Every structure is written in structure tokens, then in C-alpha cells.
């Protein structure tokens, strides 16, 4: 029997006025994935994104959002460079690859390879560390795209038979839906050594009916809102909250 099923049974018993039980909230600690006690500062260095034109400036929006969250949820001093330093390095790499505007597939592949090389280059991060007084660096790769998720979905309907009896009819129905997917690879880098301390991949998806007018930016924030607790869980202890039943 699944947990949700058991919860439903327990809920039904409680609703029936079962006085032999008492539901209590529990709150247990969950350690952070990284021990960041050796760092006083944190720098969001920027993110690698696709070269496609996008409705959302992913790197800038994500850097700003993470800075705000880190300021309110950690003890670390959040550095705020005028421009994310990884972005400057990526633009230099892009200038070498070709003219601005549209890029060929080969140029995009070349950019991706160069971006990957930068993300894994300890020397690059160590130099950045010297410049910013050796913070913990967060960088990574981001991808945000819309997807058409229209298709047939299982459907159940109750209909009346000729004798007036209700009958369950199973079938399928075409649903027009669109979705947005946000994928993020976060790199946590020790800028004293330039070494990668931890890497975390997140992926979130949201679906809407075709007639819902949701802007990509709203979707992006909805998905980031889901992703943020997991991101913060890498750096700060979190709590697992729930309820348990005490018995008489």
C-alpha cells in the first residue's frame, strides 16, 4: 500500500473522530551537501547558455535570483560584480568563433566545447579567485526551452446507458498542451585551488493548457521557485518537515 493511500486511510480514521491518535508536526534536520565553513564569500560567476535567441536572459536572471536567495538564506557575503565574470570570458571566446548574430551548427558546437573547457579549467577559476578574494564560486550551464506536449491522454467518463444505469467509459482525448523545461548544471568551485567541489544537476518541467497565456519569464520563475530549495540545500542545512501520529 502506498504512503498516500495510507495517509488517506489515516485521514479518514481521524475524520471519523478517532480519539486514540494525535497528529503532531515533526521537523528534522537535513545536512547541507557541501561544507562551506571554509568560505566567507560566494560569487555567482555566470552561466553558459545556448546561443539561440531567448525570451529570457537566463544567465542574468539566474545570477540575480541566486544572489538574492543566497543573501537571505546563507551567512556568506554575496559578491556582486558589475558583470558575471564567466560571461566576459565566454564573450571573448565567442568573438574568436565568429560574427555576432546567427551561428552555424559548427560554431555552436565549438562554443559549447570552449564553454565546457572553461568550466573545467582550474587555472581559470583560480585566477578569478585571486581577483575576488577567493570566494566559493557558483557557475554552470542552463537550458530553458518550450515544448509542445499536445497528445492523447487517457480519459474516463461516466455515461448513462439506455436503461439509465451509470457506466464508466474509458477512452482517450487529444489535449493541446505546451510546456517549459528548465535544466541546470550547477558547478561549485573552490577558487583557492580552482577545483570543482560539487556538481549538481536539476531539471524541472511545467505544463500548461494551450489556452493559458503564460509568458516564458513567468514559467522560468515558477520553475526556479521549485529548484531553489534544492540549490540552497547544497550550501545550507535544510529541514524536513512532516507530520507523525502519536497513539494513545
Amino acid at each position, binding site marked *: 500500500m502506498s*504512503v498516500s493511500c*495510507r495517509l488517506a486511510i489515516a485521514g479518514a*480514521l481521524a475524520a471519523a473522530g478517532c480519539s486514540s491518535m494525535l497528529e503532531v508536526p515533526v521537523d*528534522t534536520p537535513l545536512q547541507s*551537501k557541501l561544507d562551506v565553513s571554509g568560505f566567507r564569500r560566494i560569487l555567482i560567476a555566470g552561466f553558459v547558455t545556448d546561443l539561440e535567441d531567448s525570451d529570457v536572459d537566463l544567465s542574468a536572471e539566474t545570477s540575480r535570483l541566486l544572489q538574492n536567495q543566497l543573501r537571505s538564506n546563507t551567512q556568506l557575503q554575496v559578491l556582486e560584480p558589475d558583470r558575471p565574470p564567466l560571461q566576459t570570458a565566454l564573450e571573448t571566446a565567442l568573438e574568436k568563433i565568429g560574427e555576432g548574430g546567427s551561428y552555424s551548427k559548427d560554431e555552436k558546437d565549438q562554443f559549447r566545447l570552449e564553454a565546457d573547457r572553461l568550466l573545467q579549467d582550474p587555472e581559470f577559476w583560480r585566477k578569478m579567485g585571486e581577483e575576488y578574494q577567493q570566494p566559493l564560486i557558483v557557475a554552470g550551464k542552463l537550458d530553458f526551452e518550450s515544448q509542445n506536449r499536445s497528445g492523447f491522454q487517457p480519459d474516463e467518463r461516466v455515461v448513462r446507458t439506455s436503461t439509465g444505469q451509470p457506466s464508466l467509459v474509458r477512452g482517450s482525448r487529444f489535449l493541446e498542451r505546451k510546456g517549459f523545461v528548465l535544466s541546470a548544471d550547477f558547478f561549485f568551485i*573552490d577558487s583557492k585551488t580552482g577545483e570543482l567541489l*560539487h556538481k549538481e544537476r536539476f531539471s524541472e518541467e511545467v505544463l500548461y493548457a494551450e489556452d493559458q497565456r503564460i509568458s516564458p519569464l513567468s514559467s522560468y520563475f515558477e520553475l526556479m521557485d521549485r529548484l531553489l530549495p534544492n540549490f540552497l540545500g547544497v550550501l545550507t542545512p535544510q529541514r524536513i518537515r*512532516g507530520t*507523525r501520529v502519536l*497513539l494513545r
Partner: protein
Amino acid sequence: MRTLVTLFFLASGAALRAEDSSARQIDFGLKVAQKGLWQEARFRFERATQADPQNAAAQNNLAVALEQMGDFAGARKAYDKALELKPDDAYIQQNYDLFREADDKRNRKNKRKRPQP
């Protein structure tokens, strides 16, 4: 024959007293748990299990108190014992399932290598 009857009544009286003592400890434990005084609740539930080791409610409550206080190994042991005593109790099973879900999350995190800063 009279000795046997006396022994029977003495034994059942002791059992009743144990059950009564266990129930009283549980009642008090519930009151303090509701106020968030988990240290005291844990003590009461422990006393309840000592007074009546066959009391599944006491084992369940002790497990919840231990879980709340971060003693996850102790909580697992107490949940196991509670389920051993009452395998069909939906509440205990529900608590145990939720505990395991949370414990799995914790273990997944702890398994990751913690780097030296």
C-alpha cells in the same frame, strides 16, 4: 489450588498495573509532545515501553520522539518493534513509511563525499 488462584490474581494484577502505568506515561507524553517538549516526551514514552514492552503505541510514540530529536537509528529500531507488535496498524505503518522516506533523503545526502574546504 488456593496458591494457584492467588498467583493468578497477583500476576494479572501486576500486568494491569503495568498497563495502567504505561497508559499514564503515554498520556503525559502526549501532553508534553503537543507542547513541543520532546525531551520530556521521549522520557515518558521510554518509561511506557519499560512498563509494558508489549505496548505498540508506546513503541510508536518513542520512535516519533526519537526521530524528532535526530536519533534516526533509535527511531528505526522503535518503529520496527512497534510494527512487530502490531503489524496491521495503519498509523504505525504510515509513520514508518514517512520516516523511511525522510531517512532515505538524509542517507542520500550523507553518502556524497564531503570535501575539505
